[in-house]
């Protein structure tokens, strides 16, 4: 038993190092050039956004349309800090503060919206993110209003992206594997039954919002640091919908689904840049087709795991042995 566990852990670590090394190699050999690097950054940010929204909507069942609002708080906080302290320390402090500020707002949003369900919750979270956007527009003296902030120092590179993406995935995955995760899923499945089992449903719904917002704050901070320009309109309703599309496409309740969908959509969207006239039509068409054939999303609520590859490997080896 210990042996198996250790073997899985070793494989997991090898897999994670490999993923890092391969991309690093592609970046240093300039196969991922400056243009593709933007796609890489977008993928990483979207993974963080989608996985964290999946915690709120896919696992805990709280329909949220306000994720871009949390993201914008991280983006502005980090930008304002790194513009004053343009060092790595300033950048890291900015990411951390951005995440904490977003989590704080997540907490404040989580509390009053707890009584709401489904569509009502979606509208309330949407309203919240609109309020945040309007506050950023009107805080002229700090945020430069609708024109936004420019020349934000860039500190984001592949190693940092990797740290934050892997950190987010590990954080949320471990949370979901614990008894806390079971509580979240039980709330999604049947809130009244969950309460009858003695689960503190209020606590877990707020917790999901806090952690989800915290990660969205990180994503926003990375965004502002890489793309060096932010304005309130980047974080409107459409951005929240974009994130929700990734989550639904990958599968509500599947972390690896969110990762897969984030990669797929970014690649498709980058590829379609060459056909600007019909780009959005093709993009929408692909979404519609996938949803017709996989209404539960690419992975449903399943996860791709390393042990799955092991099993496939064994099956394959067995098949060869037969011949």
């Amino acid at each position, binding site marked *: 038993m210990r042996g198996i566990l250790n073997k899985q852990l070793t494989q997991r670590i090898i897999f994670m190092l490999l993923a890092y090394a391969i991309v690093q190699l592609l970046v240093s050999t300039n196969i991922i050039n400056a243009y593709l690097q933007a796609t890489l950054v977008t993928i990483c940010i979207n993974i963080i956004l989608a996985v964290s929204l999946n915690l709120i909507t896919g696992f805990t069942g709280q329909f949220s349309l306000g994720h871009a609002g949390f993201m914008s708080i991280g983006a502005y906080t980090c930008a304002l800090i790194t513009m004053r302290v343009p060092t790595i320390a300033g950048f890291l402090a900015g990411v951390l503060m951005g995440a904490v500020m977003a989590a704080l707002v997540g907490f404040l949003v989580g509390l009053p919206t707890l009584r709401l369900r489904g569509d009502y919750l979606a509208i309330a979270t949407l309203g919240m993110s609109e309020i945040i956007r309007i506050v950023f527009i009107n805080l002229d003296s700090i945020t430069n209003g609708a024109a936004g902030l420019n020349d934000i120092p860039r500190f984001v590179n592949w190693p940092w992206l990797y740290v934050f993406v892997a950190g987010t995935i590990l954080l949320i995955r471990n949370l979901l594997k614990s*008894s806390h995760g*079971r509580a979240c*899923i039980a709330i999604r499945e049947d809130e009244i*039954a*969950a*309460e009858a089992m003695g689960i503190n449903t209020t606590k877990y719904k707020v917790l999901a919002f806090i952690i989800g917002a915290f990660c969205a704050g990180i994503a926003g901070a990375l965004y502002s640091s890489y793309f060096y320009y932010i304005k309130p309109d980047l974080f409107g309703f459409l951005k929240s919908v974009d994130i929700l599309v990734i989550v639904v496409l990958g599968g509500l309740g599947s972390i690896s689904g969110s990762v897969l969908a984030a990669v797929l959509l970014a690649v498709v969207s980058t590829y379609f840049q060459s056909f600007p006239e019909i780009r959005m039509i093709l993009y929408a068409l692909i979404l519609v087709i996938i949803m017709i054939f996989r209404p539960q999303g690419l992975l449903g609520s399943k996860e791709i795991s390393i042990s799955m590859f092991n099993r496939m490997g064994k099956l394959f080896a067995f098949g060869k042995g037969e011949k």
Partner: protein
Amino acid sequence: MLEINNLNVHFGVIHALKGISLTVNDGEIVTLIGANGAGKTTTLRTISGLKKPTSGDIILNGENITGMSAQQRVNKGISHAPEGRRVFPAMTVLENLEMGAYLRKDKPEIARDLKMVYDLFPVLSDRQKQPAGTLSGGEQQMLAIGRALMSRPKILLLDEPSMGLAPLLVQEIFNIIRGVNKAGTTVLLVEQNAMMALQIAHRAYVMETGSIVLHGTGEELLQSDQVKKAYLGG
């Protein structure tokens, strides 16, 4: 075991429970019968802490639990199998049962209770790995009762366990309720199937539009003209 004094519950302007009082003694099966909308479900939800009363007291083994959260009440030994089964559909049978023991930490004892539930409902044992949403209605009801037992309750609240089940299954469920009670769990059973409920209950209360209008032993109420007319079809 359980005592309710002068309980009032409102949903906005609707006065759902109008000062009801009832007692459940240690080791009893007590049933609460009445027509649709009488307030039976509301009574159970108020006892388990899912609904806050406007006034009145709920006493469990001498302790006033009226102000406690649902979580605290589970820890005190109240377990509620809600109306409509409400299993967790995407979770497996085993995971559902584990959720029933969510607040417990005593792993070996949980394993023992799991075995006890599987002995009680062998069909659940066969379907451990199956998502609960794919079970038949009767199996889901068994799972709901099994899940409620996994918190090792002192008192089990059952809300219409016979709802929507074929007569043969209803008989089986009632036999199991009797078995659970014999094994030492006190039961408060809400039913519309008055005939069956009165047959296994030690005592019974009849509810009408938020008030308790009649009570007695199961036998007495089975003989009562008023009950016969209203609930037993003649």
